[in-house]
C-alpha cells in the first residue's frame, strides 16, 4: 500500500525536476551554443530562440575554417581520433596487465605483495608534471618521445592503478571455494582464472575499464608534454579555438558535443555493468 501523500509526491517531482535542470542545463546550453554563431552567442541578453547554423560542425568535420587570411586547417577530428585511440589502447593494455595482477594480489600472499600494490597506487598521488619532466628526458634518450607507444605506456600511470585496485576488490569478494572446486576437477590455475574468476568479476572489470577510459579520455598534460601537435587529444585540441583574435564559442561548444559522444555512448552501453559493478564492490556482506 502506498502511503505517500499527494503533496509529498508533488514535492518529490519538483525536487527531481530542479536537480535535473541543475545538472543538465549546462549540457543543454552547450548543445544550443553549438548551433549558433559567435555573434548570436555573445548577444546580451542571451536568447533561447535563434536561427540555427551547422557551420560550427561543418568546420570541425571538414577540418577547414574560412577566415580573412584564407582557409585554415583544423585538426579537431584528428585530435578526436587520438583521444579514442590512446584511451582505448591504454585501457586494453591496462586490462591485459592489470586484471591478472589484481587476481594475484587478491588470491596469493607473496613477498612484497602489498608494497608493490601500494607503489602502483602511489603513482596516482604524484603530480603529473613531477613525473613528466624526467620522463621527457628519458623518452628523448630512448626514442620514445612523440610516439604513440610512449604515450600508451605513460597512460598506464592513469589506467593501471585504477584497474588493479578496483578489480582486486571484486576478486576478493568472490568466494575462492568455487575456484578450489574447479581446481579439484583437475584444471590449472590459468584455466580457473579465465573460466571462473574473470567471468564472475566481469561487472567489476567493466566498471574499472570504463572509469579508466574516462580518466584517460580526460587527460590533458601527458600528450601535451610528450607528444607533438599530431598526437594531441581533444582536451588540448579544443583549446585551439581560443585565440588572441577571440574565442570561437560556437566551435568550442560543437567540439565539446562531439568529444563527449564516445564516452556517453560507452557509458550508456555499459551502464548496467557499471551500476552493478560499483554497487557490488561497495557492499560487503
Amino acid at each position: 500500500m502506498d502511503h505517500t501523500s499527494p503533496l509529498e509526491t508533488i514535492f518529490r517531482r519538483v525536487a527531481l525536476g530542479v536537480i535535473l535542470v541543475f545538472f543538465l542545463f549546462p549540457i543543454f546550453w552547450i548543445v544550443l551554443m553549438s548551433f549558433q554563431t559567435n555573434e548570436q552567442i555573445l548577444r546580451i541578453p542571451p536568447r533561447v530562440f535563434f536561427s540555427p547554423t551547422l557551420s560550427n560542425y561543418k568546420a570541425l568535420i571538414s577540418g577547414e575554417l574560412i577566415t580573412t587570411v584564407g582557409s585554415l586547417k583544423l585538426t579537431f577530428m584528428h585530435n578526436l581520433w587520438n583521444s579514442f585511440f590512446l584511451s582505448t589502447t591504454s585501457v586494453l593494455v591496462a586490462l591485459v596487465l592489470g586484471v591478472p595482477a589484481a587476481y594475484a594480489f587478491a588470491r596469493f600472499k607473496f613477498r612484497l605483495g602489498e608494497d608493490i600494490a601500494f607503489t602502483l597506487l602511489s603513482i596516482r598521488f604524484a603530480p603529473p608534471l613531477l613525473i613528466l619532466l624526467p620522463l621527457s628526458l628519458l623518452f628523448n634518450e630512448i626514442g620514445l618521445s612523440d610516439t604513440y607507444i610512449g604515450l600508451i605506456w605513460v597512460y598506464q600511470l592513469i589506467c593501471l592503478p585504477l584497474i588493479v585496485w578496483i578489480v582486486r576488490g571484486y576478486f576478493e569478494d568472490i568466494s575462492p571455494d568455487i575456484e578450489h572446486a574447479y581446481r579439484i576437477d583437475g584444471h590449472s590455475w590459468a584455466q580457473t582464472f579465465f573460466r571462473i574468476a574473470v567471468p564472475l568479476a566481469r561487472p567489476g572489470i567493466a566498471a574499472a575499464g570504463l572509469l579508466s577510459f574516462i580518466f584517460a579520455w580526460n587527460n590533458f598534460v601527458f600528450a601535451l608534454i610528450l607528444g607533438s601537435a599530431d598526437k594531441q587529444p581533444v582536451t588540448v585540441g579544443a583549446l585551439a579555438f581560443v585565440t588572441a583574435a577571440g574565442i570561437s564559442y560556437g566551435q568550442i561548444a560543437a567540439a565539446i558535443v562531439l568529444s563527449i559522444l564516445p564516452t556517453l555512448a560507452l557509458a550508456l552501453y555499459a551502464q548496467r555493468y557499471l551500476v552493478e559493478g560499483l554497487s557490488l564492490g561497495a557492499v560487503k556482506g
Partner: protein
Amino acid sequence: MYEKERRLIEAFVGGRMSRRELFAGLGKLGVGAVAARYLLNDAVTSAMAADFDWMKHKGTHLKLLLNKHPYADAMIADIEAFKKLTGMDISYDIFPEDVYFDKVTAALSSKSSQYDCLMTGAYQTWQYGPAGWLVDLNEYINSDNTSSGWDKKDILPNLLASDSWSGKPGDALGGEGAKQWCLPWAFEQYCISYNKRIFDSLKLTPPQHMEDLIEAAVKITKSDNNAYGIGVRGSRSWATIHPGFLSGYVSYGASDFVMKDGHLKAAMNSPEAKKFTELWVKMIQEAGPKNWATYTWYQVGNDLGAGASGMIYDADILGFFQNNGDTKEKGNIGFHDFIANPEAKAPKSNVWIWSLAMSNFSKQKDAAWYFLQWATSKEHDLFGAIKGDMVDPARQSVWDNDDFKSRMGKNKGYLEQFEKTSPGAKIYFTPQPLFFNVTTDWAAALQRMVAKQVPVDEGLDQLADSINKQMEQAGL
C-alpha cells in the same frame, strides 16, 4: 611572362608603385586577381633570391613550435614562399596559447632537439636566455649568413632593444653586452579602444588622462546603455599588470624596481606609484566590470565586441580584432592614444612582442637562421600585415606602406594612435628572473585593494616588503 606585366611587377618590387596601383595596372592588362597574386609572390621571391644564396640549405627540414595566433596563421599562409625561396622543407607544431608556454618550457628544459625555431615573448626569454636554451642571434645578424635585404634598421628600434638583454638583473634592455634572444615579429601597444556608438550617444570624446577617463567611464556606467565604463584585465596573473596598468603607471613616473647598492629594491610604494594606483583602483571600483578579478584578455575583448563595455585600456590589436571580427560592434570601435598623466607630454606604453627565437638544441642552426631571416623580413611582414592579421607589424617599412595604411585607416584613429604612441612604446619592466612571481603578486595585491580588503597605501607597502624579501631570498 609578358613584358608589360613584368615591368609593372618590377616597379612594385622596386618600391616605385603601390600594391593597389599594381593590381589596377594588371587588371587593365587582363590579368585576374588570383593570377596577379601568384605572379606577385613569384616576383617577390625572385627579388629576394637575387643577391643572396637562399638555396644554401636546400633539402634541410626544419621544425617550428608555434602558438595558435593570427600572426602564426599569416605565416603559415605564406610558408610556400619560404619553401620555394630556400628549397627547404618545413613543418610545425601549433599549440593553443593557454598551454603554449608549458610546451615550450618542457621542450627547452628537456634539451629536446625536436624544434629549431619557436615563438616567444621577451619576458619568457629572461628565463630561457640566461639558462642557455636560446641562441644569441647577434652571432648571425652580423655574419655573412645574413642577406643584405634583411634590414635591421627597419625593425622598430624599441622592439629590437626590448628583445635583447645581458642576463644581469637590472641591466637595461638593449644595453651594453645585451644578447639578442629573439627577433620581433609583430607586437601590441596599449591605447584606448572605445565604442563610438556609446560615446556618440553620450556626446563623449575619447579620454585624455586618468581623471578624464574615470569621469567618462562613470558616465557610461550610469547611463542606460546597458554597458559598464572601462574594461581592463584583473585576473591573478602577470597579464593583469603589463598592459594598461603598467603603461599608466610609468606615465606617472613610477617604476617597478630601483637599484640601491647593487641590489634591486621594489618601488611599487613610491609616491608616484601610490598616486597612480589610487586612481586605477578607483576607476575599477566605480566603472569597471563586476567580475573584474576574473578578467583576462578574452573577457576584456569580448565585452568590447559585444557592446558590454564603453571602452578598454588594453592592446590596440585587441580592439582591432573586435572591430574586424564576427562581433556585434564590428565597425563601431575607435582608437585613441592615451597619456595617463595630465602633466606628461607624450604617451608611454608597455608592449608585448611576439618574437621568433632559435633553440640552442637545434642541430641545424644555420638553416634555422635562414628561416628567421625570412619570417622577419620586410616582404613577409608586409604579406602578413596586408593579407593576414599580422598587426602591429614590427617593421617601419610596413607602417609606411600605402596599402597597409589604407587597410588600417578603416579603423578610426588606429594609425594616429600608433604614430603618437610608438615612440614611447617599449618594455618598461626591469628585467629580472622573478618577473612572473613579482607581477602575479602585484596583481593579487591589486585584487585586494579593489575588493577594499586593504587600503591602497598599506597594500602597496605590504607588496613592496614581500617582493623585497623574495628578491633577497633569491640573492637579487
